[in-house]
């Protein structure tokens, strides 16, 4: 594993610790470290770059939830889209990436009343639930789909 990989894992852990402590400086450190990990990664060599982008996106979404800066939300959406673009459709974390993208786009559509974001959010959230019925991640992704604004609830079979 590369050093950016260690830094990205640390960023995610600091983000996780923030969820317990609520200390803003921890969230800022997680964002800074995760962003550094993305910037320090070689896109040609580091197969974990999408994961680093996902960690950055999650930390930015968390900070948006706390502080409401739309720039954090915009960057989170950009990063998770880049992560999805770099992933094949069958990779193990693609559904989580789509769920995160859908959640972020739904949040932005609420902030900006952008109908295109809402359409894209529904598309991403539907992709996120294309999992076997007994898969452990399906229930939380279905929840994200169900709470999406203006989204009629239909459980895919």
């Amino acid at each position, binding site marked *: 594993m590369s050093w950016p990989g260690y830094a990205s*894992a640390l960023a995610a852990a600091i983000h996780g610790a923030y969820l317990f402590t609520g200390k803003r400086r921890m969230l800022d450190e997680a964002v800074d470290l995760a962003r550094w990990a993305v910037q320090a990664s070689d896109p040609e060599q580091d197969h974990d770059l999408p994961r680093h982008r996902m960690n950055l996106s999650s930390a930015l979404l968390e900070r948006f939830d706390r502080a409401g800066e739309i720039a954090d939300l915009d960057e989170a959406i950009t990063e998770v889209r880049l992560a999805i673009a770099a992933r094949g459709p069958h990779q193990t974390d693609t559904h989580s990436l789509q769920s995160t993208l859908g959640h972020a786009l739904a949040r932005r559509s609420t902030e900006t009343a952008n109908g295109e974001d809402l359409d894209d959010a529904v598309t991403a959230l539907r992709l996120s639930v294309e999992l076997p019925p007994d898969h452990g991640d399906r229930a939380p992704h279905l929840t994200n789909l169900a709470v999406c604004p203006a989204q009629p609830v239909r459980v895919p079979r």
Partner: protein
Amino acid sequence: MTVGHRPLLRQVTDHVVQAQVSGDPELLQRAVAVLRAGVQARPRDPAALADLGAALVTWYVFAAAAGDLAEAGALFDRARAAVRRGDPQLAPVLSLVGSWLALTAETAAQAREAVRVLRRAVAVNSPTR
């Protein structure tokens, strides 16, 4: 309520990367079998223990089999106990163990412990060292 965007903390080894890329569960099962044989051959090797633990976490993502997570936790505990200061395997093992601790933390103290372990991994592997 919003769920499902928790940071992805899973770390993978080179042994399971191809399985992840292809999305082929049989490939991953074979990788797990190879790693399990590695643990049987080297039951106190922290890298072997942590690699198998990470592969089982990845297998959980494929199959959502909770029993695999319990075994992964036991392997990470053994890996952490086996790692020794100055061991060249220190950073990758600490990173895998720390990520596991972060993923499973249920208290602030456990989350802080995960951060401590991962800070060690970063410090050990810093390019400025």
